[in-house]
C-alpha cells in the first residue's frame, strides 16, 4: 500500500478524516480509504493528488500531497 498514489474524494481537514481513492495492484478496481494527513498542514481539497505514506489496516491511510 505504501507508495501508492491516490486522489482525494472527500476533504481532508486539519485533524479530520477524509477519503481517498486508491488503486491497489493486488486487487482489481480501486477502493476508497479513510485518509488522514501524515503531517498536519493545510487541508487537502477534493481532486488533489496524494501519496500514501502509511497504512493502517484495514481501511485507513496517511497521505501527503503528491
Amino acid at each position: 500500500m505504501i507508495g501508492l498514489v491516490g486522489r482525494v474524494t472527500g476533504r481532508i481537514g486539519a485533524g479530520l478524516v477524509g477519503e481517498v481513492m486508491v488503486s491497489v495492484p493486488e486487487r482489481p478496481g480501486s477502493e476508497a480509504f479513510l485518509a488522514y494527513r501524515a503531517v498536519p498542514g493545510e487541508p487537502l481539497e477534493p481532486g488533489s493528488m496524494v501519496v500514501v505514506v502509511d497504512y493502517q489496516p484495514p481501511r485507513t491511510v496517511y497521505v501527503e500531497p503528491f
Partner: protein
Amino acid sequence: MLIGIAGGVVAGIVLLVLLFKLMWRVAEPNEALVISGSKHGEGLGFRIITGRGTLVVPGVQVVRRLSLDLNEAALDVECVTSQGIPVHVKGVVIFKVGDDPSSIANAARRFLDQQKMMGQRVHNVFAGHLRSIVGGLTVEDMIRDRERLTGETRSASGIEMEKLGLIIDSLQIQEILDPTGYITNLAAPHAAAVQRDARIAAAEADRRATEAEQEAFARKAEATRNSGIQQAGYQAEMDTAAARALQAGPLAQAAARQEVVVQETKVAELEAHRKEQQLQADVRKPADARAYETRTKAEADRDARISAAEALSRETDLKTAAEANRVKVAAAAEAEATRARGLAAAEATRATGEAQAAAEAAKGLAEAEAARAKGLAEAEATRAQGLAEAEGIKARAAALAENQEAVVAQQLAENWPAIVRAGADAFGNVEHMVLLNGAEGMSEMFAKALTMGGTGLGLARQLLTSMNTGAPAEAPAEPAPATQVIPVQADSGN
C-alpha cells in the same frame, strides 16, 4: 455380470462426480466464501476465498457465503439543531463489505448470520452520528453547507464502519424537512425581497414599457402632425400650381399681347423714324439745298465781283505795265540807237585813238571826243578808252599798281547783265504787285531791289567811281540811267 460391472463403474463415476460436486465450492465475483472447520495458518480460525473455487470436505468444513454486493440504508432521522429547532433529515447510505481480507473477516465475524440486518445496523450508527452532528449545526449551515454535513458524518462514522468491515460508497442527505416551518420562514424575507424585486422589476418594466409606448404614441402623433403639415404644404403647392396653371392661359395671352404691343411700338417707332427721314429728305434737305444754293450764289456773286474787280485792277496794272513797257521799249530803242551810235563813234574813236596812239603818245583829244558822245555810249567809250588805255599801258609795258583794279572793273563791266538779273530774281515769283504810290514808288521799288539784289553793286559803283575820278564830273550821272534801263529790260524779257 458385465452389466453389473459397467453399472458399478458408471455408478462409481457418478458417485465421484457427485462427490466432487459436493466438495468443490466456487466463490462468485460478488461474494466471499468463509470456510471454517479446519485449522488455518492465518490465525483467524477460518479461511476466506474470493473469486475462485476450493475443495471443501463435507461434514468437516462448513462453507458460508458473504455477499460483497452493494447495500443500502435509508436514513430517516429526527434531529434538533443547535438552535433547538427540530428537523427531519432524510438521506441514504450506500455501503458494502470491504474487498480486503481483513474487512471481509471483520464483516464475517459481525454479520455472517445477519446479513439482512446490515442496513438496520448501519442506519442506527449513522442516525446517532447525524443527531450529534446536526446538534452542532444551525439550520442555515445544514442548508447551505451540505458537503460539510456529509463530510463530518463520514469522518465521524468512518472508524466505526471500519470496525464493521464496511466501506461507505455514498452518503447522501436527500432532504431536510422542517415541521415548524422555520425554513419557510427563513426564506420568507428573501422570498419577499425577491417578490419585491420582482414587483419592482415588473413595475419598472411596466413603466418603461408605458414610457416607450407613450413616446411611441408621441412620435406617432408627431409623425402624423408632420405628415399633415407636409400634406398641407403639398396641397398648398398643388393649389398654387393649379392656380398658376389656371392663370397660365391669361398670362400667356397677356405676354403675347405684350409682345404684339412691343412689336407695334417698334413699328410705330420705325414709322416715325421713316417719317422723320422723309421729312428730312422732303423738307429739310431742299431747304438746306436752297439755302446752300442761295449762299453759293451769293458767294459766287461776291467772288465774281471780286474777280471783276481783280480783273479790272489787273487790267489797269497790265495797262500800266504795257504803257511802261512801251515807254521802256521806246527808251530801249532809243538807248540802243544811242548805243549803236556810241559804239560806232567809239569804234571810230578807238580807230582814231589807235591811229593817234600809233602816231603819237596817248592824247586827251580822243577821250574828249568820246566824252562828248551820249550817256551810256560815253561810258562805253570811257570803258573802251580805259581798256584802250590799259592796253596802251600794257602795250607800253608800263606796269602800274592799279592793274588789278582795272581787271576787276573790266570783269564787272562784262558781267553787268548777270548781276542785274540776280537782283531782279527777287521779283521773279511776284505775280501781282500793287503799288500805292504810283510810278514813283515803282522806280523806288526797283532801285531798292537792285540795291538788295547785288551787294557787289555798291562795290562796283565805288570801283567805277574811283576809276572815273579822272573823268568829267557829268559822266557818272549818265551811266546810272543806263544801268536802270537794262535790268528792266531783262525783267520784262523774263
